[in-house]
């Protein structure tokens, strides 16, 4: 360790194997400042601009968006959102060619700028050190920052590391010919970059911070050295110019002498690497609340008259950049996104700049000839001499051409970083990397196919087993059901009585509901009847009323509520389904709850003024989407607590579960009525849930049915199952998400929804009165 640092201080570097020295060609853009360019007429924003998954679209065609407004959101750690680079209108969303070597079409959002460049509301952060690490990482994730050096790995993932970090390496090597984007950024914005590095320092607490810059960028080195002069754990490393020193693995080897093990990430060595441009973006995101919406792009090559670095909004069409830099159309047009070594040819110039685009190279035919001069490999071994991964490219190409995939894996094809050094030196001018890409793609495809086949087989077998099991269960249920029914009808036991009373209660509730919606006067009467029949505590009623009033209030903040609704939709559905189980257990609680609700309703009619007062505090809170949920939960808790005081027979826990279930019962009472016999309901549930992909939900439904039997709460079970069925119907599509959501949230959501519905009814009532 100390030896590493002492070596670094002395300016001694390790050597990685191979490497080449292609002509630099940086002089085209080296000494011109980063230019701002005119706003393009249209921005083409691929929804996915990084490695990982694309976010979920949250705007639609025709929407007006503000600068910096998120266009997608992410539920997945490997998904980062994109943001509107300027204010304007979403024109279209469809598949279009994107900046990717595959040349495939991918979903893109077309934004027409309105020319005003109006920012969304930004919240500046004066002192990020007051924020928690997680808050900063969230900020970085929400700003859509992904590695800007080339690969586009989501930055927040790298920062979310557990192990102790020894070295934070800031990559400013920029070893590809032609590109000077990072160089210029370091020269012009060294302070912001150092600010970004300090943020990373705050999050990761590395022992050492190394800023690696190749020795062909003396001005950038000076700038960064000055900007970081006061930070004593920052070490600016001036490393020799060699391609591909900027590669993550190669840079780690150069600086620390360590090799990233095959198949592992650098953080397994206690190393995190970030690109300088990423540091800049992180500083902007955390301090100024500017999401990643622009970047420096080197527009260069002999085919452009004014090669220069420009600030390009993400989504800027390449054509626009070229026009701005006075591109001279060539007889044989060839545009390269990225550098000449690792960049890829563009299919046309209507492709948007993305987060990883550091260069647009427009060479003349003479500058980068495109003849196919490939001859046979003569096994000269020059490729192996320069390969930084120490592979044998000649063997690889041999086996790649022969489609000998086992051998390819043996020769470590997947350690190839596609740097192109081998193809650069190959005297036979074999496009080696091209062969590797094809081979890699095919091997991956094969593996996927194998995996798929395996999965399909496993699925098939699991299904067979499940079906067999279900059949047995079904038969068992039929038998038990028949017995139980006989028992219930014939005996006059307490069990039967309670069951009957439950039916009565359910009927009453259903009636009440119907009456409410149809005739207000009558409905209130019938409610009163129930209230009178079942003695209840006034306190619980008041509490329930408050809760509902709160829900109503939050409803009055319409937009926010809508968002809550939207996000909670799948969760709610799941909740209703899951709660079916406890509902069966606590029939009494349900009855009580129904009563409470009925009462509360009346209360609300009478004491609106009173409730408004109590909920004022919550009202302000509920303007925020995130606080709305806890609020609801709080409300429920109070309700359940009060109810618990009264209904001492059942435990608190069951009650809290029972409550939401009870609220949903209302919805399905009609159904429950229609299904008088448990057995039929049972069958339906099984049938419906079968269609459901999600096995977990399936199990829950089954268990619920079993529970019901054990407790012999037959009719209740029918109700529950009917509920489950409905839930299954409503949430079939959204099912998968529900797994992830917190159970509490689900309960809360269910309650909120139930309440909201009730509230609506109330409103209707009020309006008509």
């Amino acid at each position, binding site marked *: 360790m100390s030896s590493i640092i002492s070596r670094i201080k002395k300016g001694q570097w390790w050597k*990685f194997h191979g490497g080449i020295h292609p002509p630099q060609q940086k002089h085209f853009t080296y000494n011109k400042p980063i230019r701002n360019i005119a706003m393009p007429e249209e921005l083409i924003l691929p929804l996915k601009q990084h490695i990982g998954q694309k976010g979920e679209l949250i705007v639609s065609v025709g929407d007006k968006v503000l600068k910096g407004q998120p266009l997608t959101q992410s539920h997945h750690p490997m998904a980062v959102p994109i943001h509107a680079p300027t204010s304007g209108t979403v024109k279209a969303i469809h598949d279009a060619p994107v900046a990717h070597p595959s040349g495939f079409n991918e979903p893109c959002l077309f934004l027409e700028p309105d020319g005003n460049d109006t920012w969304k509301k930004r919240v500046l952060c004066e002192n990020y050190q007051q924020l928690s690490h997680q808050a900063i990482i969230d900020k970085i994730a929400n700003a859509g920052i992904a590695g800007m050096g080339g690969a586009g790995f989501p930055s927040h993932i790298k920062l979310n590391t557990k192990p102790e970090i020894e070295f934070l390496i800031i990559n400013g090597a920029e070893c590809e010919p032609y590109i000077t984007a990072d160089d210029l950024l370091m020269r012009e914005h060294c302070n912001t970059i150092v600010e970004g590095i300090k943020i990373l320092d705050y999050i990761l607490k590395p022992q050492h911070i190394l800023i690696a810059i190749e020795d062909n960028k003396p001005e950038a080195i000076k700038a960064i050295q000055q900007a970081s002069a006061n930070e004593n754990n920052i070490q600016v490393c001036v490393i020799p110019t060699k391609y591909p020193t900027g590669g993550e*693995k190669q840079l780690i080897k150069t600086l620390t002498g360590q090799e990233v093990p*095959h198949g592992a990430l650098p953080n397994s060595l206690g190393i995190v690497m970030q690109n300088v441009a990423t540091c800049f973006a992180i500083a902007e995101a955390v301090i100024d609340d500017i999401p990643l919406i622009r970047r420096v792009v080197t527009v260069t090559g002999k085919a452009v008259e004014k090669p220069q670095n420009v600030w390009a909004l993400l989504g800027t069409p390449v054509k626009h950049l070229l026009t701005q830099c006075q591109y001279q159309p060539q007889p044989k047009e*060839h545009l390269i996104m990225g550098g000449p070594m690792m960049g890829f040819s563009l299919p046309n110039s209507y492709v948007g700049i993305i987060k990883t685009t550091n260069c647009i190279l427009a060479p003349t035919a003479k500058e980068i000839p495109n003849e196919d001069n490939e001859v046979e*490999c003569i*096994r000269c*071994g020059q490729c192996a001499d320069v390969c930084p991964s120490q592979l*044998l490219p000649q*063997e690889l190409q041999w086996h790649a051409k022969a489609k000998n995939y086992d051998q390819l894996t043996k020769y470590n094809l997947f350690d190839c970083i596609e740097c192109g050094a081998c193809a650069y030196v190959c005297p036979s001018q074999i496009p080696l990397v091209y062969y590797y890409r094809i081979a890699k793609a095919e091997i991956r495809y094969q593996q996927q196919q194998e995996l798929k086949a395996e999965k399909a087989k496993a699925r098939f077998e699991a299904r067979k087993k499940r079906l067999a099991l279900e059949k047995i269960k079904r038969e068992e249920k039929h038998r038990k059901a028949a017995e139980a029914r006989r028992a219930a009808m014939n005996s006059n036991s307490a069990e039967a009585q309670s069951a009957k009373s439950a039916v009565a209660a359910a009927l009453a509730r259903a009636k009440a509901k119907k009456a409410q919606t149809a005739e207000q006067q009558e409905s209130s009467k019938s409610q009163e009847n129930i209230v009178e029949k079942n003695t209840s505590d006034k306190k619980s009623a008041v509490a329930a009323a408050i809760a509902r009033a709160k829900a109503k209030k939050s409803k009055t903040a319409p937009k926010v509520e809508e968002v809550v609704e939207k996000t909670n939709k799948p969760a709610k559905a799941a909740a209703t389904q899951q709660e079916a189980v406890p509902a069966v257990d606590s029939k009494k609680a349900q009855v009580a709850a129904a009563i409470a609700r009925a009462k509360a309703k009346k209360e609300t009619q009478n004491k609106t003024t009173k409730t408004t007062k109590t909920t004022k505090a919550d009202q302000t809170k509920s303007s925020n989407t995130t606080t709305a949920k806890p609020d609801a939960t709080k409300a429920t808790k109070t309700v359940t607590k009060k109810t618990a005081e009264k209904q001492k027979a059942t435990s608190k826990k069951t009650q809290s579960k029972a409550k939401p279930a009870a609220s949903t019962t209302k919805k399905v009472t009609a159904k429950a009525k229609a299904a008088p016999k448990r057995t039929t309901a049972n069958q339906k549930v099984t049938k419906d849930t079968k269609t459901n992909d999600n096995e977990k939900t399936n199990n829950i439904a089954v268990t619920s049915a079993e529970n019901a039997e054990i407790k012999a709460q037959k009719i209740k079970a029918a109700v529950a199952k009917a509920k489950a069925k409905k839930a299954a119907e409503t949430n079939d599509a959204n099912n998968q998400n529900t797994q992830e959501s917190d159970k509490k949230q689900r309960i809360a959501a269910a309650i909120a929804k139930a309440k909201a519905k009730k509230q609506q009814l109330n409103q209707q009532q009020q309006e008509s009165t």
Partner: protein
Amino acid sequence: MAFFIASSPHEHNRSKTSALMRLVIMATIPGIFAQWYFFGWGNLIHIGIAITCALITEFIVLSLRNKPLNKYLLDGSAILTAILLGISIPALAPWWITVIGSIFAILVVKQLYGGLGHNAFNPAMAAYVLLLVSFPVQMTNWQPPLSLLPIDLDFNNALSTIFTGFTLEGYSVEQLRTHIDGFTMATPLDTLKTNLTLGLTLDEIHRAMPMVFGENFALGWEWVNAGFLLGGVFLLIKRAIHWSIPVSFLGSMLIFSFIAYSFNPDLNPPTMFHWLAGGTMLGAFFILTDPVTCATSVKGRLIFGALAGFLVILIRNIGGYPDAIAFSVLLCNMAAPLIDQYTIPRAYGQGTSKNTEELK
């Protein structure tokens, strides 16, 4: 507007296989010059014949295989093969030897295996071995250096000898090889081998036939070898060949000849003789280094060269043939794929790093 699509890297150092071949061809010039200086025009004439035949054969085969002629015909590989064969054939061997050799080299050894890059054996050496085995008399008829010849072997004489078997004055090759003292002069290696089998010691041979060996090690041959060494160094500087094979080959010859010499200096010639006699330097820098047929990785090449050196010493000292470059090259060519199998270099981040184990 259709855009040009190409795979990265778009940049290339503009080197070409044909350029590489040209470089190697150029590097043979000092050696050929030395050969010409000491042995006359014979080899140059053979080189000319070989190139002509090789190109014609290549042309026919490429046409038959529908390969693009412009790419392959003049890529220099056939010419190089022809030159190497021409150098190896005895200067005054009959013309048809070269014709058969070059056709065999190109047609069978190279093209039948799949053309450039696919041949398992070095074409020049395979052809040489074929000729040596089929026509041992013609293939061992090395004339002595010009200085020992009774007549002036000029271009016309050499030409006439190659095509008719006799000089313009009517001397046969056999007569040219006969010393004034009445014995037949052969190459130093030949002489040594023949006489060692007759039971003489090195000292006795040297005393009996001093003119064959000259003042240093092997009259004429030492300069030819020096010429090829010079060309080889040029190739090393130009990075046209890798240092590993010549170094390990000459190194292993040094080691094994030294072992043999210290074991019995009477019967085993010293290292310098091995290095400078026969085709050692040609083999070290021009034949073993033929990339197509040698091992791939640096480690593999070191083993490959060492093996070749060992075999050369073994055959020269113990075996039945005076020179052994061609045989050992072919044997090593055969071993190369095996060597490759066991010398795959450790890729970055693979294997030995202790971190990998820690991770697991």
